């Protein structure tokens, strides 16, 4: 689609894009301000808020928990999500049509309701450890990425290649690992990245599933903000934005960022 653009539209769009990015630079400015309160433009320059993060042990421990949860949750979601996506594509006629809708449920049910329900039923009634519930909650949260993004890759995969390998005597599991998987690797990488970043940033599920001694970074940030209004949070945010930059670099290198508009 290409028509002539009215100059006013270009101006409005430019303003929108500037407003999308500007607040993130404001965080960067606030993070280096030599004041005890959050302010922009920064007054003076200091890195002490960055060193302050590492002095507060809660940030360190929750960051580690967040990374563990995101890694194991995403890994579990892919481990069970990829076979599900494969089954849904390969055996479409032999599986009931509602089954694919089951994997949409984690998107449909509000996250905060899922978090609350998991706390009530799983942590308290079943007595499952907080860490395990947290990980399963995050695996559920990101399962739709595993099923749908990998599914999209499988939809364009030519299954006759797989049949060729099998008819030549290759065992099914080996066929999957050496023939199918390499062909859908872009989808798997994309699913992993989207799932990981979603899990790292999640608030609503973790909110109810953090207990004494165990919490995730976003929850710790919220808790810190309720007590202090100093630039420490700004510097933590800068570190999280660096993570985003890293993730975007990986997406650009593997799939190209335009992938995200599809």
């Amino acid at each position, binding site marked *: 689609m290409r028509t002539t653009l009215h100059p006013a539209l270009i101006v409005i769009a430019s303003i929108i894009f500037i407003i999308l990015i500007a*607040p993130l630079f404001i965080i960067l400015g606030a993070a280096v301000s030599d004041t005890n309160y*959050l302010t922009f433009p920064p007054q003076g320059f200091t890195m002490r808020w960055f060193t302050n993060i590492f002095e507060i042990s809660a940030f360190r421990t929750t960051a580690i928990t967040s990374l563990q949860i995101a890694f194991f949750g995403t890994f579990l979601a892919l481990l069970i999500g990829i076979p599900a996506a494969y089954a849904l594509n390969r055996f479409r006629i032999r599986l009931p049509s509602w089954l694919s809708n089951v*994997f949409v449920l984690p998107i449909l049910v509000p996250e905060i309701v899922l978090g609350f329900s998991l706390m009530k039923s799983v942590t308290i009634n079943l007595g499952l450890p907080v860490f395990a519930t947290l990980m399963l909650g995050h695996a559920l949260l990101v399962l739709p990425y595993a099923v749908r993004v990998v599914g999209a890759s499988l939809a364009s995969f030519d299954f006759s290649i797989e049949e060729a390998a099998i008819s030549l005597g290759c065992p099914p599991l080996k066929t999957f690992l050496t023939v199918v998987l390499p062909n859908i690797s872009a989808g798997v990488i994309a699913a992993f990245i989207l799932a990981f970043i979603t899990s790292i940033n999640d608030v609503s599920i973790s909110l109810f599933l953090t207990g004494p001694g165990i919490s995730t970074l976003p929850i710790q940030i*919220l808790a810190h*903000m309720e007590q202090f209004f100093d630039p420490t949070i700004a510097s933590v945010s800068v570190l999280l934005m660096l993570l985003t930059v890293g993730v975007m670099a990986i997406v650009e290198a593997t799939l190209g960022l335009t992938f995200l*508009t599809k």
Partner: protein
Amino acid sequence: MIKRLSPWILAGPASLLVLVFLILPVGSTLIATFTDAKGWAAPYATFFNSGFRRTVLYRTIEISLITTVISVILGFIAAYVVAQMPGRLKSIMIIAAVFPLLTGVVVRSFAWLILLGKNGILNSALLSMGIISEPISMLYTEGAVIAAMVYLFVPLMILTLAGVLEGIPKDVVEAATSLGAAPFAVFRQVILPLAMPGLIVGAVLVFTGSFTSYATPQLLGGERQMMMGTLLYQRAMVTFDWTGASTVAAIMVVVTIAIVMLMTRLARRLNPMAG
């Protein structure tokens, strides 16, 4: 035998995870609101008899609707421009939309805390221009929540619509133009109807996202602008009123699913490419 069961064996673990850790827990939360000792659906009577909780529900609907309308308009304009930009500029614009999207809700809401705070950039600007004589409190207002939510959801809208708008065949637009349609007529009669399904999908995502949000109303609205998400948390973790919390949860689920189903049906009916 194994062969016949293999689809189920492959899809089984994932289905089981959804069943055990989503359908059953959420189901039990919903059922709890109907099996209260005080009588069938009594928790709903409690909810709707409380002026405070009713206000929270209405406020949540109002904020979500306003957020959706503004996000749709701004997102459409931005996506429309993105779809027609040459390659290089387009990538820059997509990066500008993806970056905030991949940055967490907490960080993005926090940015507005700095913008709107007492020592924030907006107050400093207004002070230096002499419009106000002392810092005004902009936080904990409905406007603050809406501003941050629009900021949250515009990137999502842009990315949803950019793909849809790029997919509109340029022949269709050219045909309309060469047949003498004015630019606005092309927009209203050709582009808008073709973009409608994407627009509806985006609007649903924004509405349900706002309706069930927690971090943004918590940070920018506080107690004064309590929304359904913050009410659910307050009921469950501050007052330990689990029945009350479950009722809030049930209302959230019903509203979300009703909106999704209604709009999916509407999108199907409005899709000019279908049937």
